[in-house]
């Protein structure tokens, strides 16, 4: 009985297999070619949905470009994309700063999401055109820009998102140099030529490695700062500022933290599919799911903490502002979106992720992640649709006297949302054709630093910590 238990434990907790460095290079570079039929089919489907989404965006802008109350769902989509595509690269950055070993193989897949920030920008364009200036009907609405020019929100939010895209790409590129060199050395055709150009003479000298690490640290820090800044600007200028009397100091941080939650969930989903369909079990270990699961669990609990912190202050305050905010965002027309968001962003993931067994596996983890993404979409709808539904002539009032009626999505909104999300997945999938989905040099580093050992009579892993 005891020996059975021991055998099961050993199989369940087997350390990651040791793979030779040249095998890692060859196998991972090979993942960029030889896409399966299923992969190609999905690329086609996602591509068509993306084109449809952009077309719907253009048509909507032509037909409804003068009525800001019809653009709530697009604003919710931009918020969703900012959270997912903006938050995912944090997985490539934060655990690396904390010198965690488990994250090394999976940083690439997280930083590929930074390219998807281009979708956030695309969807932002019509919003920037439609967002009213700060002074409407002779009155200036509440804004963080105080006495600054009328189009400050438009300019600065766009700049923040452009900088986010740029820094994200630079973070990706800084870490990808050695892998472009691997592409140069091990692949053929256009991939080899592209790798040669982008590797910029990488040979792996000591100076080059040190510069690489310095760049990753620098761009990682900048990325985080800009992400918080972008979240702050977007939620305030395109959210709070649109609603008279809505003053919620915690909203930018709430948005950022739920963004991290969504980003981690997106990385889990990407990892699951890469591991399963590209046969990368040797490289994407259950350790990664275990650690990401703990992170996701903590972020899920943080969601309810941030939400409750804001809710309880409004609930106790009971001024007209407070009551109007609660009715507008939670108790009024958005009550079903709110309950859906709370259950899917907090209650269900909490009870899925709390179990050790779930976090050691993959299937329940990916299901929990899909639930979180769905919940996030509902949460963003709950926040931004009522915000944009406030008519232009009320936007500078002291507080919201009349809660706008529920605005349901029209066919354009649905196609745009589907298209935006599809385009994110499409971009990530296409990037895996250009560069290996797992970071070759970091997988090699992981194998170098982490070795299974026998400790007296037991089994353990020896993890070197060179920093």
């Amino acid at each position, binding site marked *: 009985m005891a020996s059975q238990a021991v055998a099961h434990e050993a199989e369940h907790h087997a350390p990651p297999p040791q793979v030779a460095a040249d095998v890692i290079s060859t196998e991972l570079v090979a993942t960029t070619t030889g896409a399966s039929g299923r992969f190609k089919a999905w690329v086609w489907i996602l591509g068509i949905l993306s084109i449809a989404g952009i077309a719907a965006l253009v048509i909507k802008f032509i037909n409804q470009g003068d009525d800001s109350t019809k653009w709530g769902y697009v604003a919710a989509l931009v918020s969703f994309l900012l959270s997912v595509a903006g938050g995912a690269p944090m997985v490539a950055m934060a655990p690396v700063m904390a010198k965690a070993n488990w994250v090394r193989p999976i940083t690439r897949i997280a930083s590929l999401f930074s390219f998807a920030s281009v979708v956030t920008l695309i969807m932002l364009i019509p919003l920037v055109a439609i967002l009213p200036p700060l002074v409407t009907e002779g009155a200036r609405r509440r804004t963080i820009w105080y006495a600054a020019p009328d189009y400050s929100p438009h300019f600065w939010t766009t700049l923040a998102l452009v900088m986010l895209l740029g820094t994200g790409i630079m973070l990706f590129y800084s870490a990808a140099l050695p892998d472009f060199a691997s592409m140069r050395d091990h692949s053929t055709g256009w991939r080899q030529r592209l790798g040669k150009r982008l590797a910029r003479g990488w040979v792996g000298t000591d100076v080059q490695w040190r510069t690489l690490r310095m760049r990753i640290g620098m761009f990682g820090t900048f990325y985080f700062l800009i992400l918080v800044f972008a979240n702050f600007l977007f939620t305030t200028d395109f959210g709070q500022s649109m609603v008279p009397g809505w003053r*919620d100091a915690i909203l930018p941080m709430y948005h950022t933290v739920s963004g991290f939650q969504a980003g981690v969930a997106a990385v889990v989903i990407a990892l699951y599919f890469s591991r399963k369909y590209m046969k990368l079990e040797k490289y994407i270990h259950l350790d990664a799911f275990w650690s990401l699961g703990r992170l996701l669990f903590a972020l899920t609990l943080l969601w309810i903490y941030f939400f409750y912190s804001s809710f309880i202050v409004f609930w106790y*305050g009971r001024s007209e502002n407070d009551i109007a905010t609660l009715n507008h965002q939670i108790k009024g027309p958005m009550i079903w979106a709110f309950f859906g968001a709370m259950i899917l962003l907090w209650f269900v993931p909490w009870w899925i992720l709390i179990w050790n067994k779930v976090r050691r596996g993959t299937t329940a983890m990916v299901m929990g992640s899909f639930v979180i993404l769905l919940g996030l979409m509902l949460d963003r709808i709950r926040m931004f649709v009522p915000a944009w539904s406030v008519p232009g002539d009320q936007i500078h009032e002291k507080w919201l006297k009349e809660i706008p009626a529920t605005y349901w999505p029209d066919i354009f909104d649905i196609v745009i949302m589907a298209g935006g999300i599809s385009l994110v997945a499409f971009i990530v999938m296409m990037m895996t054709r250009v560069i290996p989905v797992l970071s070759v040099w970091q997988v090699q580093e992981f194998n*170098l630093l982490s070795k299974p050992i026998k400790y007296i009579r037991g089994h353990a*892993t*020896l993890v*070197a910590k060179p920093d």
Partner: protein
Amino acid sequence: MQQRRELDQVYTNRKLLNGQLDTPKWWLPTVSILGVVVLIGVVVIAIMVNKGLGVTGLARPVYWGLFITTFVFWVGISHAGIMISAILRLTQAEWRRPVTRAAELLTVFSLLTALVFPLIHAGRPWRIAYWIMPYDVSRGIYPNIRSPLIMDPVAISTYLTGSTLFLYIALLPDLGNLRDRTTGWKNAMYTVLSLGWRGNPRQWKMQTVGGILLSALMLPIFVSVHSIVSWDFAVASAVEGWHSTIFAPYFVIGAVHSGVSAVVTMMALMRWLWKWDDFIRPEHFDALARLLIVVATGWLAFTFLELTFALYGQDAPEIALREMQMFQWPWNALFIIFFLTAYAIPVPMWLFKRVRTNIALMFWTSILVNIGMWLERFLIIVPGLARRTPFVYTWEAYRPSPVEWTIFIWSFAWVTFLMLLFSKFFPLVPLFEQKESQVFTKDVMIGRAKVPAIVREAD
């Protein structure tokens, strides 16, 4: 970064138990002086209870002054324990080892001290005893659970109980060690306290698994306690500067900032006083300082958001308050000192490795941070109340009386006194964790480089 030292168990025992097995020369004079200060403080508290709150500077409209500021300050300091002990345990950071017990101890004693302040702040403190236990059932009146002033003691008691129990559980192996090193009445005391600890694999496994489980349970409590304390202020819409949704995470991150700085202060003192140079090393200060940079910058972001959204509302009384707080004497001076000491001086200094590994500099910068964080709480609590508005009919400004200052100083003496008393009977550095690090760390050769490595059990 983590340098491995070969330290055998006999040496570890001898060095880390030097407070219990011998008495350092400075111990008795220091404890005596602190005892005198504590006694003076207790007498002053007794005088205040006898004469009433009129001996303080509190008056309409400033009903909450030094006492509540110091209360929030000590609750903030208490957040060090769980941050170091629980979070660093869950993330398996090796460098937490020398610090965990002292940090947990600081938590327990600062919470005990914090709890004193609301009690003495009541005009008739004996009434608190009457209505807590038992409930005044015959008149059908119960404490109002909707009030944050009721939620506070519940939260703080929960955190205090949890931290004390956590401290005791983690102390068990060391109590066994002390039992083995002593004779006579001390041996009898440690035998009872160690509950028969032997050190078999079952007991060690419970320490590991239980430690992780308790850490995971204490973390949500830790976040909730200071959030509930912050809601004392945030739920009140009548006072300017208080009704902000950001207070909960803002206070929590401020607490982590001041708490971890207090741990740095304490670590430097421990190293110097007990000569624990082998166990509390510059690399521990380096790691703590890096953590502090991240936490302090996060705190700065929250401060910025709080100020921005205070002004965002374009509410005249709120703007008038901020104008008073930042530009009028004496608040402007306090504000500048607060900002300089809490962030602008220490954090740029910590960016340099030479400063991070210099223990004296770390000691002084951590004290600066706590001066700044005390001022931060003062600037949140008092100006909103002090701003003279029509119909208040008060002409004096709030000026803390000598009674308040004495009790403020008493609180520092009390915490230090308790810590030193504890150090006489129990080790401040967890011995088994130090010994565990010898077992669980190795140096490996990667090429010609000697790299420190950690042994990780299969999860």
